[in-house]
């Protein structure tokens, strides 16, 4: 295969990174229930080991090529021509790293706050991590779907077992929403599989051209799965519930990695497999993105619940991501991918921060806070940084991402660019207002005398803080990963040369 560079390291790095958490989960399973501390240390050790083992992905990555790297390939189910086929390119490699980092942070932040069914909790966290990494590494559609769906099981349990008061409703809503989307994608996958001569190999599928009518149908089948995960307006309604009710670690996983999988799906599958349909659907997708940006931001202004506010801000921020992706130009796409990473870091960090005070006060109501800056000074400075990053202040990572996206957005459609910019203004409004209500004003009786962050909590926030500034000041060390892959992706999307008239005809056909 010329499209892949097989793994050159001494060990199968991707398999190791995927299955080490599973191994850790098995160790915890064998551990005695009463030895909770050992359980936590196994989880933490597994997380750190996974992260360290994934580090070569960052250092040994060849930025000059769009080809899949660190590839592994084994025959798995020959009857259906399914291979165990892994590999990463510039688009996916960063998310693998983000996932391994998130796992550590999640274990750290749950250390004291999870008190029931400790064993099961860490098993669920590790399994989720494993499946998430699997999603980003799979180059076989079947394998991808396997990880994509399998991840629902531990995530369902994390929300439903350890979540807030309304957790069961949120968990079931989350599960059903994503399942409906996924099964429709499954139909799409099977159609592709049969059409492309019975192969699940994504790279082989990408070399083919599919009839336009079929592309349209498939686009919407994939849209069902990916848009729900992103989540795009109007299928976002599971997100506020799931985010709000999930335990801190669950919210962090959701925000940092899980909802990235939807945008990643668009990048990895919808655009290169269905280029003509993607081009034809750009207006629709841009519209939905802009609605998401503004709608999410406006709704944020009305929230009284801390976590719910950040959840809705995710809808807004992910609107930027899809806007960048469907701008279909180099700035937009790179900005979109970078903003996915940024959003993972910043929103993940915000959820972590909320978790830290929630552990102390057990309330998520904004009205229950106030004057926290004098009570928890270190905490408030951390929160300030993340707030500013969420707003997109220059020198933080949010600025780079949003700037690139708007640049791309303006090129694609001036109106979309202008409207999206208002989202940033409203964003500054709700975030600063939130900061004011929580950290300034009169000190609320409920927060008097709260201890500031302890070492464990600080350690879990520091990597996020570093990333905020690293990406903000020197984005090239991350954008460098993207150039070749994004360029290649754009070439794929923009070739095909079907005339506009044909596209219009196909749309009419589909509508009919």
């Amino acid at each position, binding site marked *: 295969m010329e499209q892949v560079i097989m793994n050159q390291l001494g060990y199968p790095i991707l398999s190791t990174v995927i299955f080490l958490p599973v191994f850790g989960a098995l160790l915890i399973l064998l551990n005695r229930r009463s030895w909770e501390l050992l359980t936590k240390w196994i989880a933490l050790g597994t997380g750190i080991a996974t992260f360290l083992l994934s580090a070569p992905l960052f250092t040994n990555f060849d930025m000059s090529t769009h080809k899949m790297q660190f590839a592994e390939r084994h025959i798995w*189910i020959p*009857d259906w021509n399914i291979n165990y086929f892994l590999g990463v390119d510039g688009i996916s490699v960063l998310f693998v790293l983000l996932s391994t980092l998130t796992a550590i942070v999640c274990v750290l932040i749950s250390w004291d706050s999870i008190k029931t069914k400790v064993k099961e909790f860490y098993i669920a966290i590790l399994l989720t991590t494993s499946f998430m990494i699997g999603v980003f590494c799979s180059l076989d559609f079947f394998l991808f*779907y*396997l990880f994509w769906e399998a991840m629902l099981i531990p995530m*369902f349990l994390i929300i439903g*077992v350890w979540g807030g008061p309304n957790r069961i409703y949120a968990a079931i809503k989350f599960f*059903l929403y994503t399942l409906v989307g996924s099964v429709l994608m499954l*139909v799409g996958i*099977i159609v592709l599989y049969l059409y492309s001569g019975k192969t699940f190999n994504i790279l082989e599928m990408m070399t083919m051209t599919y009839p336009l009518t079929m592309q349209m149908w498939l686009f919407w089948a994939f849209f069902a799965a990916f848009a729900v995960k992103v989540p795009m307006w109007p299928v976002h309604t599971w997100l506020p519930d799931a985010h709000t009710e999930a335990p801190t670690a669950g919210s962090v996983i959701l925000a940092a990695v899980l909802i990235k999988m939807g945008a990643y799906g668009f990048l990895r599958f919808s655009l290169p497999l269905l280029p003509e349909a993607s081009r034809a659907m750009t207006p629709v997708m841009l519209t939905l993105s802009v609605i998401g940006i503004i709608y999410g931001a406006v709704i944020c202004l009305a929230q009284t619940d801390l976590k719910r506010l950040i959840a809705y801000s995710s809808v807004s921020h992910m609107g930027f991501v899809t806007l960048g992706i469907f701008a279909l130009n180099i700035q937009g796409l790179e900005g979109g991918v970078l903003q996915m990473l940024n959003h993972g870091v910043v929103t993940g960090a915000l959820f972590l921060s909320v978790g830290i005070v929630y552990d102390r006060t057990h309330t998520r109501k904004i009205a229950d806070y106030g004057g926290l800056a004098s009570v928890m000074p270190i905490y408030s400075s951390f929160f300030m940084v993340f707030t500013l990053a969420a707003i997109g202040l220059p020198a933080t990572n949010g600025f780079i991402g949003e700037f690139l996206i708007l640049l791309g957005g303006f090129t694609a459609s001036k109106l979309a660019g202008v409207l999206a910019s208002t989202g940033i203004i409203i964003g500054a409004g709700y975030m600063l207002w939130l900061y004011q209500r929580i950290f300034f004003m009169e000190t609320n009786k409920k927060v008097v005398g709260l201890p500031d962050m302890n070492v464990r909590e600080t350690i879990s926030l520091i990597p996020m803080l570093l990333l905020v500034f690293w990406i903000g000041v020197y984005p090239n060390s991350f954008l460098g990963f993207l150039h070749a892959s994004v360029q290649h992706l754009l070439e794929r999307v923009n070739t095909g040369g079907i005339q506009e008239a044909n596209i219009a005809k196909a749309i009419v056909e589909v509508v009919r």
Partner: protein
Amino acid sequence: MTLQIPDLSPMMPELLMTALALIVLLLDLLIRKKEVIALISMAGVALVAFYLFGPKGTAFGNMFISDGYSTFFKLIFVVNVILSVLISIKYIAVEGVNYGEYYALILFSTIGMMIMASAGDLIVLYLGLELMALSTYVLAGFIRHDIKSNEAALKYFLLGAFSSAFLLYGISLVYGLTGATDLRGIAAFINERGLNENFSLLLSVIFLTVAFGFKIAAAPFHMWAPDVYEGAPTSITAFMSVGPKAAGFAVLGRVFMIAFASVKVDWAHILIPLSILTMAVGNIVALSQTNIKRMLAYSSIAHAGYALLGIITANNEGLASVMNYLMIYAFMNIGAFAVIVMLRSEGFKGESIYDYEGLSKTHPLAAVLMLIFMFSLTGIPPTAGFIGKLYVFMSAINAGYTWLVVVAVIFSAISAYFYLRVVMYMYMREPKETVKLTTSFSNGIALGITAVAVLFIGIMPSYLLDLAKAAIKGF
């Protein structure tokens, strides 16, 4: 005139099974410990399984066909009978109906299924079907002192007899039209005389669909299933949710694919609405069930709907996918019943889904096993249920029924709700009262086998797929 003894080697498994059933019936008089009888039954069935891979061929002038297709179904029946016996041993003692006939009846019923799978002639088919059905009627009413069990048996018997009448009516119509009862003869006659458009033939196809639809519990012929599943002893519910259903599919596949091969269009058009209705009724009504056996009854209806997709494709790939599906269904469904059986203890029914509240706290292992089976029944990877569904959907799309598959996946997503509800009760509610589990070694083995099979097939499906593909070769 010399009397020729026909070559019986193709039907060696059936003969052995019959001998075994008779021996078990006799031993019941001599052995007081019924567990021994159970062990003998299982050992005998294992021997039968060994002979399944013996010589293939036909006997009695094509009336009895032993081929890969039938062998695969017999393998399902063997799995079914062994797992059902394993979960029965302790359970029927708890129910206070520890009689030896129980095992003999299970074996007789299995012989019936095996004959159905091998039937090359409508008369033989009827013979097998009645043997299976009559034994199952008795088993459904095995808890004599329980009014619900009695009701189940009576209901099953009356409706079953009714469906048999349909079957016979259908057979007689076919015979009247073609003068043949053997499947290839019927097909040949239809082709020869161009009877494809014949109204009576269509009528007989409809009658046969009704009869087989009853056995596989397809809507609208499913009315018996919920009551019978609920009333029958739980181990028997497990047994008949898999066995008779698989046997029904075996005959459905063979009769429709061979005898009515030339009227494919007609019966596919009958089966499509049938399968949609079956999925709809099964999945939607299951949403509101609070009795777990009743819920699984509706789930079993729904699964018949999915499996029907494979028959609708009317090609070998479709049949292979159905066979694969049924094998997987045997493991995951009996696995779920093995957990349900454990909840039954002296003076405690354990059939309401509220009894599962907080099970993960009191009995984490049982809860995690139930979780696996529930997700497998939903069809979430990496469990076997996903592989089963995927294969069926794949073959249906390949045959051009993409829209039907879209309907099926939507219903499949709906089904997630009621399976998840069990998981939700187990994991997300606090236990109200401590539920005592009736554990036993044999039930543990059944749980072990089913759980390992569900996960193994989910991750490494190649072996089963190969088996199903090899079985369908030359069908």
